[in-house]
Structures are given as C-alpha cells and as structure tokens.
C-alpha cells in the first residue's frame, strides 16, 4: 500500500498575501457608517442650495436659515419647548396604549380560533374606516379634550401593530410548535419562548408603522381645540400666514418621525441579531 503525503506549501515570507476567489455580491453588502444620516443631510443640502440660488422661492418654501430664525423666535417667545413636550407626551401615551393593545389582541387572535373570530373581523372593519373620519364621533363620545386625542392616536397606532404581529405570529414555523409540544411546556411558556420571539420581527415592522401613524394622528387631533402642541402651533401659523413657522412644525414632525424610526430599526438590529439576513 502506497501512501502519498502532501505537505502543505510553507509560507516563508511573513507577508499577509491574501488571494481569494470572490463572488460578485448580490445583497446590499457591508453597513456604511452614518448611513442613517446621509439621505436626510443630502435633502437638507439640496434645500439650502435651492433657496440660496433662488430656485426655491420663499413663498413656496422658506429657506433653512429663515426656519432656524423662526425656530429661535418660537423657542424664546412662544414656548416651543412646551409645545414639543406636550405633543411628545400625547403621542407617547397614545402610542403605548395602542402598541400594548395591538400586541395583546394579536397574540389572542393568533393563538386561539375563538379569539380570531371575535377580534380579527372587527379590526379589519375598523381598518377600512379611516380613523381620522371617526374623530367627529369621538368628539361626541369623549369630548374635545385630552381623552379624545389619546384614544385617536392609540387606535391609529394599534392597527399596524396588530396586523404585523398577527402576520408574524402566524408565519412562525409550525415545526417549532411541534418541538414545544414534545418538550411538554405550558401555554404561557410557549407564548414567552416561541410565540413572542417568533413574532418579534413582525411586531417591530408594525412598530415602524405605528410610530409614524401616531405622529400623523397627532397632526390631526391637535387641530381640535388644543392649547399646546406642534399641531396647535401650525394651526395658529396658518391663520397668520407664517409659512416659516409652519415649516418649523413640519421639520419637527420630520425629525421626530425619523428619530423614532431609526430608534426602532436600531433596536430591531440588536434584538434580531439571531437572524442571518440581508439586513446584516
């Protein structure tokens, strides 16, 4: 019997030569630093250039520096911080209520056929009625105060959470449920260890929709008899024809929405690190 031993080529030079065959990448590739900010910064630059060169007339859209001046004026003279805080408070309370109810309803209707027949239908019906069209009704029911605003925002943000969590839950591989059955765990443990983590990607997508929906709801509800809030500020500015103040409000909404969305995506990347996806 002959044996041939192949000795591996010994690398004599200490250099780190690295010759490899690399396939063309079809996915999005490695993450870029500050990628979140590149798009918005570019948009801001375009806006500034457009205003400076006169392409964007002040009557159409105030220049960024005018907006900064208006911002300062609002901050100093009109309690802009108070407006921001009161808007934030409204959307946060509404959003939290909406997210919790949406998720709880999704788990109930996702895990039990009885729950599904009770919950799913009404939510689909509710979904086809625009929440904003319900406001007059809510005003009649809950008055024009704080309650009506919170309930509207909660309802608006509940729907995407429900839809996406439910969808994510039902998309969980049935084999994991089978495994859980053979291991002999309780329903509560099943929900905690299989259902919730499995539905988490869906929930987080719903969350991205929900944060922006809650801001959308904010814009509308604050037009009704608010004494504070960004929507209130915009409504006043509208009456006095102060375009720059309106743009201040819009920019604040934009920044809110963008930051909230980025935060959700960041959290999603952290908590979904068990996945090997193109997100990377």
């Amino acid at each position: 019997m002959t044996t041939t031993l192949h000795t591996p080529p010994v690398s004599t030079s200490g250099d780190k030569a690295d010759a490899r065959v690399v396939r063309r990448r079809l996915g999005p590739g490695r993450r870029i630093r500050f990628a979140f900010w590149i798009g918005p910064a570019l948009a801001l630059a375009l806006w500034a250039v457009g205003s400076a060169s006169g392409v964007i007339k002040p009557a159409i859209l105030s220049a960024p520096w005018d907006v900064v001046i208006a911002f300062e004026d609002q901050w100093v003279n009109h309690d802009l911080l108070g407006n921001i805080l009161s808007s934030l408070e409204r959307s946060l309370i509404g959003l939290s209520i909406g997210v919790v109810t949406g998720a709880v309803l999704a788990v109930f209707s996702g895990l039990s056929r009885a729950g599904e027949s009770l919950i799913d239908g009404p939510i689909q019906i509710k979904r086809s009625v625009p929440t904003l069209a319900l406001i007059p009704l809510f005003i009649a029911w809950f008055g024009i105060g704080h309650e009506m605003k919170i309930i509207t925002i909660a309802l608006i943000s509940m729907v995407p959470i429900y839809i996406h969590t439910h969808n994510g839950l039902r998309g969980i591989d049935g084999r994991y449920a089978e495994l859980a059955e053979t291991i002999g765990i309780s329903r509560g443990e099943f929900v905690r260890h299989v259902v919730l983590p499995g539905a988490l990607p869906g929930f987080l997508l719903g969350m991205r929709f929900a944060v922006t929906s809650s801001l959308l709801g904010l814009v509308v509800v604050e037009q009704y008899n608010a004494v504070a809030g960004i929507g209130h500020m915009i409504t006043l500015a509208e009456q006095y024809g102060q375009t720059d103040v309106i743009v201040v409000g819009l920019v604040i909404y934009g920044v809110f929405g963008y930051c909230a969305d980025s935060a959700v995506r960041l959290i999603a990347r952290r908590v979904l690190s068990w996945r090997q996806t193109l997100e990377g």
Partner: protein
Amino acid sequence: MAADSGGLTTAAAVRVRNLHRSFNKDGGVLNGLDLDIAPGEFVALIGRSGTGKSTLLRALAGLDRDVAGHGRIEVPASVSVVFQDSRLLPWKRILDNVIFGLRGADAADRGRQALAEVGLAGRERAWPYQLSGGEQQRAALARSLVREPQLLLADEPFGALDALTRIRMHALLRKLCEAHRPAVLLVTHDVDEAIVLADRVILLDAGVVDTDVRVELTSRSRSDAGFAGLRTLLLDRLGVAADAG
C-alpha cells in the same frame, strides 16, 4: 447471531397493540401493528420509503392527533424526540435551546454538562446559525438527553450528515445511550447504521412489523461475519439484492 424475538412481555417501556393509522380512506399506513420495547433497549426501525416509519414515530410521540386510526399505545412518562432537522429555536442561544423548558435551579449546569458530553463545550453562547449541520444535530441530541428521557424517539437524526460525521455521531449516540440507558426507537433508512447501533432491528412493511431481529454480534465492525449475514437478511427483506447495497 440473529434470533427472532416475537413476544417480549416483561415490563416494557413501549407497548403498542393493534395500531392503525390512515391518511385516506383507501388504505391504512399502519395496519394493526404490535410492538414492544424493553427499558433501555435500542431498537432501529427500517423500512422502505413511505411505509409509515415516521407515522409510527409520530404516534408514539403523540404528534398525530389529526390522523385517523385506533389502537393502544403505552409509552413512559418522559419521552424525548430528535427530529431529522435539529429544530433549534433560531432566537435562542445554544445553551438556552438545550435547557428549553427544563425546570430547576441547576438547569443551566445540566445543560452545560450535556453540551460538553456531545463535544460542544464552549459553544453555549453561539446562535444556532453559527453551528455546522453536525454541531446543530449534536446540540439537538444534548437537548434530548438533558431531559433524561425513558424513551428517545429519533427520526433519521443523521440523515442530513456526511458519512464521516455520521460515524462520529454513531459512536457518540451509543456512548450516551449506554450512559443514560433510555429505550430508543431510531428510524433510519440505512441498514448498516441500524446494525451498528441497535440491539434489535425491526423492519416495517405493509403497516406491520415484517421482520424483528436481535443483533448479537461480538463486535460491531462491518468485517464481522455476523454483520454481513444480518445485512444480507435485512436487505433481502427490503427487496434489495445484498451485493447492490
């Protein structure tokens, strides 16, 4: 070498009587199957594709509630299943997968020990996708063994592994089973695997146990004369010419 062991009646870990299962009205998959497995006995189940091996295993695991049929099944209180895919929860780290559903303060320690037994010490905090196919399957084995089951059901657990890893897994499984002594029912389509691993090989055909042989070999090496004889017998019953296998 090979002896018939038709009626094993002493205290059995598994007792199946007159088991019927069918997926449609034309014909049953299992037609009055009887089977006994003694505590600590390692039984390999072979049979042609589609003869109902998985159906029997799922019946024993209690996973066939939607399948029509009747019959009597007695299994021990603690049964553990190893599936063909490792079925590790992708969102749990390896150790958490192994001790999933395990109660007690020492669960983590027992999990670590089980992982060490299957040669995965140090990989406790890895995500399932970071493990190779064989490592995932070993983690699944650890998850089953840490529960110290009285009955281990395995449906082609090494089906997706390469030949070399399979040989390693065979040795590991024998060693672990000798240490923990559960009754084992292992489904395989590989006659050699069945003979190497099992105390007894049963062959399923037409929904009943067609052949039931005890493996009594002095050594489990393929060069053993008894090995070849048993292999020929089983392949013959499977309708395959032995030299072709």
